[in-house]
């Protein structure tokens, strides 16, 4: 029995259906005429043998439309991802959607809002919080990029090991820099399935490292997540439709490569685009333009039928856990949910990709619950229309509070946020004027006060330590 997540009961389409083909044809035109750059000889040779026109000197591959269409047809429309605990398995595809988390380079001091390197203890505590949150369905690549004085290059394998030790939810892992040589060993040693993630290099480029990682994911038999990342106005057109065409062309190029390599390979298509902050040159996370891009991308890829994810709801431009962070995440999340994601990053990230904190994840879990409730839509039945009940209660002094119908429905109808203040004004004043942040901090303390649970056996820990030692040695020797 997989995780329920939420089932979308209503959806939002912002592109007229008859103009979806314009996006698709735009991507095919770019793929066929401009092409996509690949940096390694193996890929150029492989794609040439599949019928692509390859300019070896420029590293440019041009894709025939029929090959693209055939490859798209090969990719599964839905598939399962096994978690260490079967109750946490994921069913991707269709109208079901899940929440995962973003990450930060560092943690943040809750009082000063200043970033700093997390400790190993804080890293573990963050995973424990992610494990405890009811709407956090699966783990992202890592909460923080490393801890203590660990070299960054081993951050991914170290993080994957801690995920396995302190959570039984499904996890994805970043495949880059040869990290997957060790993370896949860990997953295999423990009998876990893992979602391998690779990223394009916009515009219209796949690095040799990404291709190598994709091949390793396929060989290992894991599902592959491809993630784009065009910054609108920088590495993609300033317009959302144009940027979606760049991102789609990148994904479709990888769909061709992977489906030719292994027909039926499970793929999750990840959109992670945002406008460029025209003052700083960094991604303008949280801007509504990112949601416009997500909405158009989601509509196109729902048309294709492949499971898809959005990354940008998990990243904001706010620097602290305050109003800006709330509206940036809330608006982005509900629009992604309504426009068709199978999964989205939402929890944990505080400020762009720089900081993250479990208190933010606790706040975000309430956003997830609200978004999920709304996107689930409304059941229309005799019971929900309640005409007989309305007739029975009549006007005042009738009321609905004591009716069995109310007790049956109100909990399902309402979502009550754990960190939202719902006291009377007087109680709020007398209770110390607590904010959502205060409630979230209290919940963090409550979660961490619970007994710490390890999900691995001593023998599995020994395997993880052995593989980590190999990873440390490998990266220490590598030039």
């Amino acid at each position: 029995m997989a995780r329920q997540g939420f089932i979308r009961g209503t959806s939002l389409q912002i592109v007229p259906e008859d103009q979806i083909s314009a996006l698709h044809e735009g991507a095919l035109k770019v793929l066929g005429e401009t092409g996509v750059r690949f940096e390694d000889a193996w890929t150029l040779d492989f794609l040439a043998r599949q019928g692509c026109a390859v300019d070896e000197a420029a590293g440019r591959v041009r894709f025939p439309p029929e090959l693209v269409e055939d490859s798209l047809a090969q990719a599964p429309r839905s598939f399962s991802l096994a978690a260490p605990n079967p109750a946490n398995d994921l069913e991707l595809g269709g109208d079901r959607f899940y929440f995962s988390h973003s990450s930060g380079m560092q943690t943040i001091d809750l009082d000063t809002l200043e970033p700093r390197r997390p400790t190993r203890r804080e890293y573990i505590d963050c995973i424990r919080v992610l494990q405890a949150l009811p709407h956090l369905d699966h783990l992202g690549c890592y909460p923080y990029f490393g801890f203590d004085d660990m070299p960054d290059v081993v951050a991914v394998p170290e993080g994957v090991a801690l995920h396995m030790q302190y959570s039984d939810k499904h996890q994805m892992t970043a495949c880059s820099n040869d990290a997957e040589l060790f993370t896949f060993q860990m997953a295999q040693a423990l009998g876990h399935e893992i979602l391998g993630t690779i990223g394009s290099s916009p515009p219209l480029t796949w690095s040799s490292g990404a291709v190598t990682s994709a091949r390793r994911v396929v060989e290992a038999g894991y599902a592959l997540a491809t993630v784009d990342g065009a910054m609108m106005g920088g590495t993609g057109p300033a317009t959302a439709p144009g940027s979606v065409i760049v991102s789609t062309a990148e994904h479709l190029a990888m769909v061709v490569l992977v489906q030719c390599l292994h027909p039926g390979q499970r793929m999750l298509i990840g959109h992670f685009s945002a406008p460029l902050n025209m003052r700083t040159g960094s991604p303008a996370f949280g801007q509504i333009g990112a949601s416009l891009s997500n909405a158009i991308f989601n509509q196109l890829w729902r048309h294709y039928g492949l499971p898809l994810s959005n990354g940008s709801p998990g990243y904001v431009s706010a620097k602290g856990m305050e109003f800006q962070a709330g509206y940036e995440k809330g608006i982005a999340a509900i629009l992604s949910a309504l426009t068709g994601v199978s999964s989205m990053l939402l929890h944990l990230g505080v400020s762009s990709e720089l900081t993250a904190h479990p208190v933010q994840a606790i706040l975000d879990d309430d956003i997830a619950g609200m978004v999920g409730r709304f996107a689930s839509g409304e059941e229309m039945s005799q019971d929900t229309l309640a005409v007989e009940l309305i007739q029975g209660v009549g006007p005042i002094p009738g009321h609905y509070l004591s009716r069995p119908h109310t007790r049956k429905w109100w909990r399902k109808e309402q979502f009550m946020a754990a960190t939202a203040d719902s006291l009377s004004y007087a109680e709020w004043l007398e209770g110390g004027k607590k904010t959502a942040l205060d409630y979230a901090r209290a919940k963090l303390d409550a979660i961490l006060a619970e007994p710490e649970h390890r999900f691995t056996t001593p023998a599995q820990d020994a395997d993880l330590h052995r593989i980590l030692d190999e990873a440390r040695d490998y990266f220490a020797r590598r030039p």
Partner: protein
Amino acid sequence: MTAEEILQGLGQAVTDCDPEAAADWARQAVDAQLDPLVALAALTDSIRAVGDGFARGDLWLPDLIAAAEAMSAGTAILEAVIASRGVRHEGLGVVVIGTVFGDIHDIGKNMVATLLRAAGFAVHDLGINIKAEDFVAAVRRYDAQLLALSALLSTTATEQKKVIDLLQEAGLRDRVKVIVGGGGITREFAASIAADGYDPTAPGAVKLAHALLGV
């Protein structure tokens, strides 16, 4: 049917929020000639558990109010028997409660009444839209020690002052403590009309009742 089964049925009917079952069990208690005060205690114990669950946040308003309605269905039958025997049921103290004239909101008033019953007070709920003279008559009739006046609207809050003034005129003010509450009421307003107490929450009203009656 044993006495124990009847008492258990009474309590369960409240837990299940089932007024018909509560009335059925109350009739069985009367037919079996159980002590009506013991049967009433079974209902009170059960509503107290519901009230505790509400205070902890495990149960919610619909549970509380529905359980209270079930309890009322059983209580009406048992109290008729108690009255016919000339026995006075006082519990921790006799309370008259109602929503003032011009105001037909009763959710908050019902919450307070339920939690007072759960705490062991003998509560006479007059209902909504109650005229000042009817409150005074009820205080006299039941020899109440506490009068709880509810008003949601700021426009009807002044009706609470009218009740207190009328109690004074009737020579009853010294015999009964008056607490006021409702959405339109503030601590300052309560003090200005010479009420004995105010609390913004239903659980707070119960604490106030304990404090004012010294029980």
